[in-house]
């Protein structure tokens, strides 16, 4: 029971990070119908920016935890958002009305570019960060096993909930969210009714990159090591989460992230850790066989 509870806590933490990244995939898919393969690498760049910002702040002597964290968060979100915007502008916008596979190829190309850029600029080695937040609470004890929820886990889940609430309000209550949903329904009609489609799509990428930056910072704090390759596997998992929940649906992405995080953690805890990715991917295939458009996805309308 105690072991189960501990894994539940770990799984929810991991799931929160996946969920934040999955939103970036799902939003872009919803609005322009493409898989943004470079999104995982945007997350990786966010983590690197957060790491460097941390080190820079330490170098100039800002070490008070809440202040430093907040500054790093702002810097990471801001600069990663610029990366997201640039990627869209360079690789996707010129191909907006081209056929469907063209932006997929540029996205894969962009992913290779980003990975290798960071590898060249920052080196291929694993980058460690001293633990910034330590300590935790003992929740419950059973025999010799104690369930611990660490401060960092609390921070991750709390930040995720906060960011997602803010994001939810943004999508449902503001003009931006309205134009976004309009573009999702019908881009041409939205343009005719005065929505600036280009701007909306750019902002979608900026928002997605911002969320990925938050995820990147949390990942850095949680694991304490990053390298230029983390974007690939985490990105694929987050994308799997988005598909799981039904791509295009934002609550679906959150739910999918949570489920993938839980599957992975429980599989590692009770079975073999080597096959945790196999478990997550197989689960995806099984779910898709029964719900071909994901758990919360809208059924596809077949146009005749």
């Amino acid at each position, binding site marked *: 029971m105690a072991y189960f509870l501990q894994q539940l806590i770990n799984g929810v933490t991991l799931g929160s990070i996946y969920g934040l990244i999955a939103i970036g995939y799902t939003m872009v898919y919803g609005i322009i119908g493409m898989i943004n393969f470079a999104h995982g690498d945007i997350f990786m760049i966010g983590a690197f920016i957060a790491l460097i*910002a941390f080190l820079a702040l330490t170098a100039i002597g800002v070490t008070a935890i809440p202040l430093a964290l907040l500054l790093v968060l702002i810097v990471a979100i801001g600069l990663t958002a610029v990366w997201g915007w640039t990627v869209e502008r360079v690789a996707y916008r010129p*191909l907006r009305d081209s056929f469907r596979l*063209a932006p997929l190829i540029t996205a894969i190309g962009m992913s290779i570019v980003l990975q290798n850029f960071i590898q060249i*600029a920052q080196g291929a080695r694993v980058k460690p960060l001293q633990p910034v937040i330590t300590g935790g609470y003992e929740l419950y004890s059973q025999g010799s096993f104690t369930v611990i929820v660490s401060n960092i886990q609390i921070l991750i889940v709390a930040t995720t909930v906060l960011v997602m609430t803010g994001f939810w309000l943004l999508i449902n209550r503001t003009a931006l969210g309205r134009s976004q949903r309009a573009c999702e329904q019908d881009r041409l009609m939205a343009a005719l009714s005065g929505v600036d489609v280009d701007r909306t799509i750019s902002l979608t990428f900026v928002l997605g990159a911002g969320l990925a930056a938050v995820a990147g910072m949390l990942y850095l704090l949680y694991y304490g090591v990053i390298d230029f390759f983390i974007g690939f596997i985490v990105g*694929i998992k987050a994308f799997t989460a988005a598909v799981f929940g039904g791509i295009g649906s934002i609550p679906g992405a959150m739910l999918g992230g949570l489920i993938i995080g839980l599957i992975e953690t429980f599989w590692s805890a009770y079975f073999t850790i080597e096959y945790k990715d*196999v478990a997550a991917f197989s689960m995806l295939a099984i779910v*898709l066989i029964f719900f071909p458009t994901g758990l919360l996805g809208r059924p596809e309308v077949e146009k005749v």
Partner: protein
Amino acid sequence: MSDSLLAAIIAFALFSLVLGLRTEDAATGLTLEPRPALLFTVVAIVFFGRLALNLFVWQAEYPLTAPFAKLFNSEPFDRRDRVTLAVAFVFGAGWLLIGLLFGEPVYELLGTVVVLFVGLGLLRRFIVQRFPNLPYAQMFIAGGILFALFFPIVTYALESMFRLGLPLRYWFDLSILILTYVMLGWGLNIVVGLAGLLDLGYVAFYAVGAYTFALLATHFGLGFWICLPIAGAAAALWGIILGFPVLRLRGDYLAIVTLAFGEIVRIVLLNWTDVTGGPNGIAGIPKPTFFGLPFSPFAEGMTFHKFFGIPYDGLHALIFLYYLILVLAFATNLVTLRLRRLPVGRAWEAMREDEIACRSLGINTTVTKLSAFATGAMFGGLAGCFFATRQGFVSPESFTFIESAIILAIVVLGGMGSQLGVAIAAVVMVGGFEALRHTEGLQAVFGEDFDPALYRMLLFGIAMVGIMVWRPRGLVSTRAPTISLGDGKNISGELVSEGRG
């Protein structure tokens, strides 16, 4: 001006932290090393590059790139175009001359590129204008086939007669690599280009073929020629096994499940140590034999060089491998071209264009999809079998997602469904990528410690984005329709649907 400033500001924001500061390992953890000069250079390049583009190309009344575009689309020149081209040519020739005279590799490189670009463009334009009705595509294909057939024999004969010191081993290795990708591209083309099913896990079938041969050869001592059909059949079987559960999925759901399948295969190969050797892979896979005659200087019994009574040469084995993959690739191509005319091939193309219409015509889309998956997978498996015997060693390292991405990129960049395009794209991407290994010129430009190997993947990615933005429909974007009423006319790639599988 303001636009360039904006670009510079954005570049500064992009690179300030990741390029301006470098993390270095130190005893106490990570430290930062500022690199203001590098950051400043990059931002300046962006600023001036953008300014130049705005002044002379994008917003200019007479874009400087126009005459170069006209070179290749055969529009008539006016006086200004002639002057621009002449100036470019004179400059290029001047650079080349200075480079050769004073030993400046930078000038040599620049000059050669400009002279070749303008010179070849003019030559092509001249020929096309003089003889507008020649069947260029067919001539090109015939030339390519002849070249592929005779290239190793002719170079080998020249080398052994005149001792020219040609780097034959390297050439053969590279052309074998390119042909492997051509074959993989043609195999995936059946699935993506003809049937319109987006498969992101194609490398799994390549892996199945390679491991099938590796296991059969090392455990049971079976030879290459017996294993080749077995590997193809095993991969086709896996294609069907994968195909079944995903039949109901469409478009991107299919893409992600195939990607997941590719990753599953790789992870299993990596962790099932008892059978696959795990990360160490399987070594000691036998080299191919010439119908039972081994290529070896020391082997017992009859060997290739003894049988033909010629001195031993390590290149014989390479030439044999070259022809082996050439035959396999041509077989893939021929089978594809034949299948396209058969009912099943027409059903694939119909399914790509419109699945619902296809179903309402009474075509069984289940069988159609499975046959496409199985056929494509089979060729992937054959290529994998070849790969295993060429390397003599297989490990999960060779079957990562990036391989799938490269093969898919070759198919899409070549122009979906175009056999010629796939071959050209494989040569351009794999050959060009490989050429970066040998760029003393670049080393001279960027200093001694510039390591082109590091930048190869970066440039590869940039090339993928660049080619796609420049020609979204691929390098060869027109092709003859498979069937037509009356005269067949070449159709533009714009008219071919991409399939939503």
